[in-house]
């Protein structure tokens, strides 16, 4: 009970922190906030998929009749981590690009996207 509550609190807080970072003006912090959002989502998935699993999802554990954690969710997170890294690096690329074009990392200085 308690640990689930703590998980929920942590996920909610990480999400709030990520959103807050995205809303602020500093683009580097926004990129970090973006990555924190990914982490929060992955954390949520693993928390949901943990069940009462006591053992890693290996065939030997299954055959021994031990209760394992949910392998499907782990597989999903596994690929999600790599893909989120890919998109994170893309965000970093954008920040890098912007800092060169506009000589700033303050998003308020960049309002030329309209034109």
């Amino acid at each position: 009970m308690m640990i689930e509550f703590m998980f929920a609190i942590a996920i909610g807080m990480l999400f709030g922190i990520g959103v807050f970072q995205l809303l602020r003006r500093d683009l580097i912090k926004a990129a970090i906030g973006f990555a924190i959002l990914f982490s929060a989502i992955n954390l949520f998935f693993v928390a949901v998929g943990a069940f009462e699993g006591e053992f890693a999802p290996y065939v030997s554990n299954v055959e021994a009749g031990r209760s394992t954690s949910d392998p499907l969710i782990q597989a999903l997170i596994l690929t999600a981590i790599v893909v989120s890294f890919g998109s994170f690096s893309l965000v970093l690329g954008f920040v890098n690009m912007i800092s060169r074009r506009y000589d700033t990392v303050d998003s308020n200085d960049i309002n030329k996207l309209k034109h």
Partner: protein
Amino acid sequence: MELIFIAAAPFILALALALPAAQSTLSKTTQTLLSSLVMTALFVWLLSFLPRVQDQGAVIQVFDWAPSLGISLSFYLDGLSLLFGLIITGVGALIFFYTGYYFDQSAEYNRFMVWLSGFSGAMLSVVLSGNLLMMFVAWELTSVTSFVLIGFKGADDAESRAGAFKALFVTGGGALALIIGIIMLSVAAGQILHPDDGTRIAADLSDILRASALAQHDWYTLFAILIMLGGFTKSAQFPFHFWLPGAMSAPTPASAYLHSATMVKAGIYLFARLSPVMYQNELWPSALLTIGLLTMLVGAYFAVKQRDLKALLAYSTVSKLGAIVAMLGLPGQNGVKAALVGIIAHALYKSALFLAAGTIDHATGTRFIDKLGGLRKRMPAMFAVTVISALSMAGMPFLMGFVAKEVLLDAMLHYEGRWTPLVMLGVLFSTAFTAMAAYMLIYDVFLRRPRHKIHFHQPPALIRLSPLILSGLSLTLGFLLEPVIVPLLEPAAPKSFELYLFAGVNEVFLLSLGVLLAGFALFVMRKPLIARIGFPLSCDMIYDEMLEYIGWAGRTVLHTQSGFVRYYLVIILGAVSFVLIASGTLSSVAAGQSFIPRDLSLTITDLAKAFMLILTVTAGILTVVVREHVKAAIAYGVIGYAIGVIFLIEHAPDVALVQLLVETMATVLIIIMLGRIRTRTRFNAIQSLWSGRHDYNFGLVRDLVISITIGGAVFIFALIALQSRPEQQSVAQWHLEHTHVVATEDVVGAIVADFRGTDTLLEIAVFTTAALGVLTLLARGRQSGSAFVPRTAQVSSLHEFNDEVVDEIHDATSLSTPFTRTVSYIVLPIAILIGIAQILYGGIGPGDGFTAGVTIGLAISLWYIVLGYDEARRQLPWFRPEIITRLGLVIAIVNAAIPIILGRGFMGHVQYDKVLGIYELVGSFGLHITSSLIFEIAIAITVMGGLGIIMEAIAYPAARSNGGPQSTEPAEATGG
């Protein structure tokens, strides 16, 4: 199997023509011969189906696609589809041949042919598909390809861009109606055929044609109207006819093929196809008849006013299409015969006329009737073509068009409705005007003395062949009704079939002659007549007006755009949080849930988790409150590691491993990138962002409120999800029980590489795309011939950096100590060994292709940091990330495709060691060579390559302002 090849062949042709190799090796003549031979072969192939169609009615070939959704890749060939297929391939072969001589430039020809053969494939798929949903896909494909063909000259011709847009707008809008209609029809047919099972939908033609009760279905009115809208827009029926004249800016072969013989007939095909089940309700026939007759009148009336040859032909096409639609709408399917004969006759004479117009345009440089005249002597072949085809259009006795007009008038004479006299009058009126247009084509273009001097140059001789063949068919087919036309049309018609070239001097024949004479009378007094033709309001004007309003609405919306992307996000997320709170969704979801845990006890593992969670959140808060970016990045790294430890405690060793590696990589990446941003830039940002924070800051409060609301919502959602999660009953249980089948110990690895391998395949493709995105953004001056960024678009990076920073990146003097160098030398081979071990034995323990790829990638990034960019590039000549990534993806795809050949399906599991008979041998090393192993290798290579691309792009330093490595780069670049 054959039908799928027939439908695919034009697409394959298009792809083959698009290959650079084909463009450079095959001459224009070869390409012309090849493409028209392909179409001829398809024509013959389709013709060989005729006996089977005559015997058994329909040839059906089905490949399951998504059976649970009622979607199958099915092909259905009956008399009707065969007739259309023969027109598409037969006329197609002639027009493909013509195209080769119409275009003078080889490159232009090639580009055109790629799209034209793509179009013919789409069109063939429309008429051959046995499933309405699949037909819809092909239907849309014809719209898209025709958009490109109409706008072919778009780069320097605003008119053709507008025409292409207009065509796509109208037909695409109609298609939106059509898809809704098709779905409703399929659901209704499913209800009729499977009354006990409400969820089945029947989109297969063979099913729908059995559902004869469709006409009594409750939804009939709705889906009939929607489907008719789709057909009317496609077949340019009034009031949507205006796009067809607009489409005349297409190159003439496209006009001849798409806008007379094939695409505009797609709507007619749809009507003919569905008529057997739809016509029993009053709505269908009367709507078709009314709209068809109106279109016929409007088209014929406005045709004679056009001064552009192609526009005249376009309006007369509109008129004929209207006539065919009206025939399909005659009660009791009495007009189908007239419609079918009309389709053949029209395809022959109209494409010939278009090709003649194109040839005239090619020779004289103009299509305007007023500028033409007296071409009889200069272009005798086109004169013959035009005389025969125009007279066939007018319905001169014993040409093919005459037969068509006879059956049309005959069918109309037998029509008994309330408005019969009026309808008859309309038909006679429009046929007379059509005859008048035909006389004008012959006289004004060929016989009349030219008013202006014409610049004439003789077109290539072979350009005449196709129009001559087409008009020859118009001339002779009338005499070959019994041996050729009747057997072709009989399977397509619902009733017994008889055709006569000359049925004696009866009232139909007299009417027909009378119309021809009336047309001649109109022709003689055309000058005053044409001046009077006109109507104050045209559909084109309504369309333009509508576009104006859409444009106005767009501009109005643009006024609300500030250009600050951050505020868009504020508005989006603010609206979400407002809705969450104001609508009461949050409170209603949360109702009845206990938020404060009653049991506060924690086990030892829980304590460890709790500690990690606290660490995560603390580090998260730190990323917000610390000023310096580097510290924030390190705090972010702490979050990643803490979550990795949580994964480990939650019994997810594979995930934990990947998480730890990827987080390391991500943190390294941020820090490297921070080094590439000028210190002053970052300092300025920090200064301006933190200086005003002691004042009352509205923005801060606003952002805090939004993020707290969203965080709170996520908290409630997560808590409910965690507290009320169901017992483990997902598909995961199946995975747990079946993993031993694929000879793997690690269930997660088996899911990634085997059970859900297609997901993973797409996932690495996404990852590669992201990596290429980074490369595209940051490739600057790296290679002179960089594939992604042209030199002009590369950001000039001179003088942006302090020279010492740039030098540090290039040579890394401060980090490069003997100790660090030794470490990085040792680490790389070890990392590669670890990677190989993780791949080979990943089935037994944690680790897989992802971890292997990231491990090696990390070791390489260490080289970049420690040795500096230049040194690392020099010492790792084999590390060419783009090539490595390509290699990985190719291995993955080949490995996914091989099981298809072995009959296991895409991404199927194959035990290669058993197939090759070396199971015992490799088994003694504890190995199993399976398709999943190869897939893991491919994943590792792709991920490594992708990381390499990202590292290179982000680590790549700016050029030194003293002209540094620019000069050494090209030598390196040529190696790849």
